[in-house]
């Protein structure tokens, strides 16, 4: 019993039991087999054949993609979804005129106007503000003439800017109608009316018939000839129009 005795021969230790206990502690680890990855079987022919068939199918999948890098062809510009089989093509869903024109005008503004008049249309020291300007929210013909021909001399506030404003060339009637409606109903301006495509067409015609065609308009010319609204019947802003052509459209069938 005492510890001075030879411990390994101590009689009250049952050696067989002690071994069993150790065995049990190690049992799971001891009964394991070794892992061995040295199997030397070659890659069998049928595995290669099946994988080859799948590789051919994968090639077919790539081939079915057609022109993989012709982005413009896969997703053509102005793509319109085909109508459902057996139904009439109704085109894109109509929208109220004021929404459609503002959406169109926003794009034109960002290309044509944003550079000088800034994103908030407040201009800066070198370019006048469009917010609340009488020539913007006032008579629509005067506003159209400034856009189409540019402006020399003082603006509605009486301040002159060096060089004035250049003529905005290449505007289609849709562009002009859109950008005028957008500026007159955004940035804090809210005339609530729309400039229709028809009115914009007349504006382009008036502009080309000016005596001083090709030159910037001045404050005097505007006051003398263009201090009025554009001819043509005003359009109800809630009229439903086709958002692409901006022409009036029937409401979609439910």
């Amino acid at each position, binding site marked *: 019993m005492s510890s001075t005795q030879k411990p390994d021969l101590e009689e009250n230790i049952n050696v067989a039991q002690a071994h069993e206990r150790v065995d*049990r502690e190690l049992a*799971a680890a001891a*009964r394991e087999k070794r*892992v061995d990855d040295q*199997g030397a079987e070659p*890659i069998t022919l049928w595995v290669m054949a099946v994988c080859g068939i799948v590789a051919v199918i*994968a090639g077919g*999948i790539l081939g079915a993609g057609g022109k993989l890098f012709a982005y413009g062809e*896969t997703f053509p510009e102005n793509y319109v979804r085909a109508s459902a089989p057996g139904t009439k093509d109704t085109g894109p869903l109509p929208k109220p005129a004021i929404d459609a024109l503002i959406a169109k005008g926003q794009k034109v503004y960002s290309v044509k106007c944003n550079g000088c008049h800034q994103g908030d249309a407040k201009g800066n020291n070198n370019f006048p503000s469009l917010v609340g300007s009488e020539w913007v929210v006032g008579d629509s013909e005067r506003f159209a003439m400034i856009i189409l021909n540019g402006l020399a001399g003082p603006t509605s506030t009486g301040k002159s800017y060096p060089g004035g404003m250049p003529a905005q060339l290449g505007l289609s009637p849709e562009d002009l109608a859109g950008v005028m409606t957008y500026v007159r109903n955004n940035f804090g301006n809210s005339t609530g009316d729309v400039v229709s495509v028809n009115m914009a067409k007349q504006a382009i015609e008036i502009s080309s018939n000016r005596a001083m065609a090709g030159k910037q308009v001045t404050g005097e010319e505007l006051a003398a000839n263009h201090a009025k609204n554009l001819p043509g019947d005003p359009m109800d802003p809630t009229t439903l129009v086709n958002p692409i052509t901006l022409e009036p459209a029937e409401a979609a069938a439910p």
Partner: protein
Amino acid sequence: MSSQDTQSTTEDAQLRAGIDRSLRHPVMFFLCSGAAWLAVSILLGVIASAKMHHPEFLSSCPLLSYGRVFPAHMNVLIYGWAMQAAFAVIIWLMARLSRKECRSAGTILTAGHIWNLGVTMGTLGILGGYGTGIQWMEFPVFAWPVLLISYFIIIIWSFIQFRVRPKGQVYVTQWYLLAAMVWFPWIYITANTLIHCLEGHPVMAAGINAWFRSGMLLLFFTPVALGAAYYLAPKVTGRPVFSYALAKLGFWSLAIIAPWAGMQKLAGAPIPAFLPYVGAAATALIFIPACTAAVNMLCTVLSDKDTLSKSPSLRFVTAGITGLIILACSAVLLNLPFDGFNTLQLSQFSISGYGFDVLGIYGFFSLVMFGATYFIVPRITRREWVSKRLISMHFLLSCYGVVFVALVAIFGGLMQGLGIEDWKTNDLARANPYAWAVTISWSLILLSNVFFLLHLALMWMRLGRRSTHPTLLVSSHDHASPHGEEGDIDNAGEIEPAH
């Protein structure tokens, strides 16, 4: 066997037992909390699936609306169960194969708790309506750095063990596990920074998300499961891996093909046209790494049919490998863009994508993880599994359940896709019977995993059998008494050579 051999074998067993003991708490923590999350996930899956055929089910509770329950189900399945099972298997296998005891069990355990905290907060975030709406990344944005950092703290020790391992050949399992350990941070950081931190086009964000989901399955769960299978099959049968050449082919083809897959989910979307088709072709080509690994495993396992029928771990691994073969075939089948057989189109917006994911995560990955669990746990707890009936219930219900979920969802999804193509039919009505079947089979799987969780918890509490006899799935008809060998408590008889 000479006495010197006996001596080295004993020392070897002591070393292995020491490694097992050093990892006992982290591995058991990951497995048990993972199994608990798995049960939660399946419960959420049952609810989500029930809403497919009964939209009014539990609809009064906004917490349990489909848009929250379904993402919670998938995220809990992935981050709660699958990742934690992978952690357990990675840290144990890397320690065993590098022959190094783990000296950072406490750190790993702490990081594991942080991981679980992240998953809990993220899941509550989803259920509370703060999910991001980006699939498999629905946890609110705060969660991903937490998960990433705890991932590194958990995994870094396995890298260190590999670095300081004794010289020698690097085993197949180590290739796969090391690759997975590196690939996960790659895809996780890429997807999260590109989507959450950098401004980008939302369509491209959807593409990155599709790539991320594919990457989680093919670049993390697949290599972890294959690594575990390459360890368990030769270990349990005692036969060498069938073919080293096939193993190399399988690994390198996975490494080369898998990163290209994923974008096929955006076929027809306005992203560069080559991306979806390259994704579809790569997903079909996943057949090659999957098939070579599966053939290699099956040839190894089938060389010892007796052990296959008895060993729970080998049965689960073999079932998982079978799941891998089905996964590989459906990877080809679901990505065909040919006129007249356009499954790529049919599977895009239907439940077949869900079936594919479940097949990958449960029918392949999780079954192999269960197999690994049945192998690892008796070693680290030094107790044998309590009941072979619980194991066979788990096996049968899991296998039947997942085959049902996956195949029904894949095929039903194609039927639903046909319904979507014909705009006059109600595609959800077409999917309805399949949704019913999915609900029922998830319920079966839930039952099986309650057994599993119970069994695992008993093992963690060291209430397993104190015996040197492993719990094998032998028929009870062989024994005269149902309380025969297996039922004996403290039966320290002779050491059986078989597993």
